[in-house]
């Protein structure tokens, strides 16, 4: 089980073919992600990050999308991994249900997956404690800020204890200060829960701040331009001013510039 990669992508290509359009989005993407690691994917706008995200998370893509290659999550196909509750999704927008309060929103996947009521309540209580949201338990989404709402959506993703967390630019709508705060939170959660996190972002700083590995994609048709290992200790808030940190940022930026051309 230790040797089993959390995510294993081999020779992945994706093409949208239909309605007179022929668009190759992904071309021969190969990478793997170790269990328990924190990896970021970064790339120029429109390079197919969302398509890659959807393919890994087992979400349905358009009918015209033709896929080649292998995606395996803990050795299973994405759809199987989904039904086995291995994947937790956190999207760009919190997507909370306005008619439920924070606790009820976190309970949503548990209700659908058939957990008992007592079990669900216990899990939600623990999550509220983990995320320090205890005093907001009965609040409605409309009464919370964007950052808080995203926290709730992270809690919801953790509710059924998936091994892999897939996050698609979750903090892109937040301001600088809240973004940094949420970054520290997610590192906190990662260290406490020891999950595998795959984090898609378009912020170089965020990628370097958060992850152990940064995967840089090229323009369409995307392939891996480079994988950079970030060898810095956590918590990275202490490393922010070090020259090593800036060297990594420079390296990622340079790669991104090359990848965009």
């Amino acid at each position, binding site marked *: 089980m230790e040797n089993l990669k959390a995510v294993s992508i081999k020779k992945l290509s994706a093409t949208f073919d239909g309605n*007179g359009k022929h*668009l190759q989005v992904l071309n021969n993407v190969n990478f793997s992600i170790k269990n328990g690691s924190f990896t970021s994917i970064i790339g120029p706008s429109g390079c197919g990050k969302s398509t890659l995200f959807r393919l890994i998370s087992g979400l349905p893509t358009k009918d015209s999308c033709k896929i080649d290659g292998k995606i395996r999550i803990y050795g299973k196909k994405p759809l199987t991994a989904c039904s086995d509750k291995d994947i937790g999704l956190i999207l760009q927008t919190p997507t909370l249900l306005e008619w439920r309060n924070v606790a009820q929103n976190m309970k949503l996947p548990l209700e659908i997956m058939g957990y008992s009521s007592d079990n669900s309540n216990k899990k939600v209580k623990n999550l509220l404690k983990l995320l320090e949201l205890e005093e907001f338990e009965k609040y409605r989404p409309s009464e919370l800020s964007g950052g808080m709402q995203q926290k709730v959506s992270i809690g919801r993703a953790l509710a059924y204890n998936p091994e892999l967390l897939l996050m698609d630019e979750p903090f892109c709508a937040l301001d600088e200060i809240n973004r940094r705060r949420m970054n520290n939170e997610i590192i906190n959660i990662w260290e406490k829960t020891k999950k595998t996190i795959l984090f898609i972002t378009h912020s170089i700083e965020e990628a370097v701040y958060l992850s152990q590995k940064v995967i840089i994609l090229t323009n369409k048709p995307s392939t891996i331009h480079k994988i950079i290992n970030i060898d810095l200790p956590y918590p990275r808030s202490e490393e922010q001013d070090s020259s090593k940190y800036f060297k990594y940022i420079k390296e990622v930026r340079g790669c991104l510039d090359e990848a965009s051309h």
Partner: protein
Amino acid sequence: MLISKRPTGLFFLVNMKKQIKNILITITIIVIMLILWELLITHFHIPKRIAPKPSDLIDFIQKEFFTSHSTKYQTILTKSLYSLKDALIGFTLALIIGSGLGILLSQNKTIYSLLFPFLFLTQLIPIPALAPVLAAILGYGYSTKILLIVLFTIFPIIITMRNTILNIPENYKQLLHTYTQKPIILFKYLILPSLVPPLLSIMKIICSASIVATIITELPLSVKGGIGKDIYNSFNNQIIARVWVSVILISLISLIFFKLLSYLEKYINTKYKYGKFKSC
């Protein structure tokens, strides 16, 4: 390496074929239903005063349109078009006045609260109740009829227009404020374009309401020429075939009106692409 082809003319032709196929299927279904209807009524000997047979209706249509009448006689088609004309006048007036009021009332909450009960009452008091009252003031003439149609249709227009303006996201207003301080610019570049989609959709709803209002106002008011009065009279005289054909006729006219407005909406939406606002 990006290969992207534009949709060719053949693509649009496929869509046309589908539409024609749909129309043919609809016509076949209607014809089958008419035949069934005729057979059912003949078989069960349902008396004429309850429901006519399609053959009765065809008889009536033949007598009405294909035989000559005295010069003073107005066919139900003429009467329907007369009612349609009145409906259109009421419809247009309601749109203009309603939009104007909607825009004005969006500016001041107090005035809206003061005026709201009266606007609400225009919807609440049905035309047959309101008609005698208005007729007592304005007489049983043309202006009362148009006024009633306008009163019936104006409330949804005001509410929709007002709500649209109030729901324009703040960031758009702030953006325009950085360019100019004149409210007229805000009006021209932001408010008017944002009113077009709801206007088009409310037009579709109001078009049938205006025809309904026209028909109903023709009942109590002794105005000459409308189809409402004709339906009422033939109903009371139990000329059932005439009632049915008139109802079908005015429904068809209403449907055509509605369809034309739908095409207008589609045309304007594709040409000018007034989409919805995406708030930050």
